[in-house]
């Protein structure tokens, strides 16, 4: 008959207090890790921006590297910018048809086992170190012919194909089976249904996959290192010649004793990174939009 009323939810025991503390510590650790990841990205962007921005001027994009009367490096990186555009462009032209056709085969025509095997092969290909890809193309296209933009483009396309094929296959799988059935019920053949109904529905996703693949390939250095690393300080548009590229310029200029050259390297890094960031963000936003559009058809 005590007059003290104790609530059943009364003061926590020592065990539950410790459990709560451990829980809170884990939460804090996870938050810190996430913040650290963000911090790294912000630091990298900031560092490149700060050092590269000072070298940003019109000369950078309008002039090629040259040496002035005193033997100092001067000029811009016009040849590298154009070179990256050309090399990445050709790589895209090679990789996109291959990637999309592989994805269509897997999604529409292959049996389960074949599709699984192809997917495995693509994953392995994506995991091959890019320097190995570079050596492979070196032996195939460079030996006996010399460096060329074509060789670099082929090497980059090998890196791009798995990305495009995997993402495109995912998007194709999202297209509901009812659309295929609807097309075939009207008398379209399998191939006709794919080309006239499935592909137009999935085109948004394919564009996204391509943008993300370009963003990745533009910054790959190792394949270019072995296929197109020695080039002239002038703009060439002929892909059979070697030409400059942003990753190579960053690598070569950063190691030069000239401070001007080092500033060029930072500027090149800034341009490259800005391009990759913009492409990656645009790619992700487009991906959301195209998925939403496909969801509507369900």
């Amino acid at each position, binding site marked *: 008959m005590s007059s003290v009323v104790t609530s059943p939810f009364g003061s926590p025991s020592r065990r539950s207090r410790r459990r709560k503390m451990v829980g809170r510590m884990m939460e804090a650790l996870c938050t810190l890790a996430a913040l650290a990841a963000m911090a790294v990205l912000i630091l990298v962007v900031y560092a490149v921006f700060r050092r590269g921005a000072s070298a940003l001027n019109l000369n950078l994009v309008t002039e090629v590297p040259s040496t002035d009367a005193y033997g100092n490096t001067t000029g811009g990186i016009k040849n590298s910018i154009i070179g990256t555009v050309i090399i990445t462009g050709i790589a895209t032209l090679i990789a996109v048809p291959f990637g999309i056709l592989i994805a269509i085969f897997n999604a529409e025509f292959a049996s389960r086992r074949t599709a699984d095997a192809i997917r495995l092969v693509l994953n392995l290909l994506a995991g091959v170190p890019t320097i190995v890809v570079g050596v492979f193309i070196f032996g195939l296209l460079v030996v006996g012919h010399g460096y060329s933009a074509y060789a670099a483009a082929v090497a980059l396309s090998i890196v791009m194909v798995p990305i495009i094929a995997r993402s495109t296959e995912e998007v194709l799988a999202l297209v*509901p089976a*009812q*659309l*295929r*059935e*609807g*097309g*075939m*019920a*009207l*008398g*379209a*053949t399998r191939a*006709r249904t794919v080309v*006239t*109904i499935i592909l*137009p*529905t999935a085109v948004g996703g394919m564009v996204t996959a391509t943008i993300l693949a370009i963003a990745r390939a533009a910054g790959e250095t190792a394949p270019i290192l072995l296929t197109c690393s020695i080039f002239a300080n002038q703009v060439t548009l002929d892909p059979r010649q070697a030409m400059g590229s942003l990753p190579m310029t960053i690598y070569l200029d950063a190691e030069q004793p000239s401070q001007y050259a080092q500033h060029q390297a930072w500027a090149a890094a800034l341009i490259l990174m800005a391009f990759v960031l913009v492409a990656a963000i645009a790619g992700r936003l487009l991906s959301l939009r195209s998925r939403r*559009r496909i969801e*509507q*058809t369900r």
Partner: protein
Amino acid sequence: MPDSDIATSTQSMTDPPRTEPSDQDAQPGDVQEAPQRNQGGLADIAAARAENPTEGREVVFDLDDVMVSYNGRPAITGVNMQVHNQLVTAFIGPSGCGKTTLLRSMNRMNDLISGAKVEGTIRYHGNDLNASGVDAVEVRRRIGMVFQRPNPFPKSIFDNVAYGMRLHGMKDGLNDRVEKALRQSGLWEEVKDRLKQSALGLSGGQQQRLCIARALAIEPDVVLMDEPASALDPIATQRIEDLVDELKTDYTIVIVTHNMQQAARVADKTAFFSVDIDNTGNRSGILVEFDSTSTLFTNPTDPRTEAYVTGRFG
């Protein structure tokens, strides 16, 4: 029988009355089962239809001992039936008895499923559908299908209807044909000002009518409908049923439905399917009874049919 005058007076009846005819109590065959009235007048609705609708009509489909199996396991077996011209034939029965499987094999849509096999003969105007050398594309041009859930293509309304026509090279007078198809499916007035807008912006009922227009646009002979109204609200369902009734003057229609009242309302002949468990415990679908709608619902022969339509199972 009190309603026999209405039912058998004309064989070319195309628009049977929807209102319930007079008192049913004197009907033979249902003496023990008072609950007929409890199904919302199911028998009343059905009894309003002709008792012998197939008289004088051509046979469109002739199914001879048809069995469909998936990877060796039979889904439906031993189907013998005939579908007649410009009538609505309904397939009813509980889930899993192979109604949809049978429907799909009538325009070779089961070809899309690997492991699906059709045995027996399905004749369309006397021609075996599964004979070697028969082009499935030609089959599907003549025998169209509307699916359970509306599946418009993510294109404009016009392009949806025109898709089949462009596919089969019916390119002249495209605009007029599109309009005709949309009028036939009762959608023209609602979409005539927005033909270029995406079909995905239509409501569910409108999308289904668009799919019907799309199927009609290539001028098929037969339209197969797999529960076309089951994904729609009651008002949209009513419109689809009215549409089926109008369409049968020009097309032969086979409709699968879970809704017995719907079959009673729209179908001239009804086939009742059920599940059969053989002595090894395997389940497969079978055709139990196939007769004019009025007979099937008011005076079924098989006790299983009677149990189903009076609501004792399914």
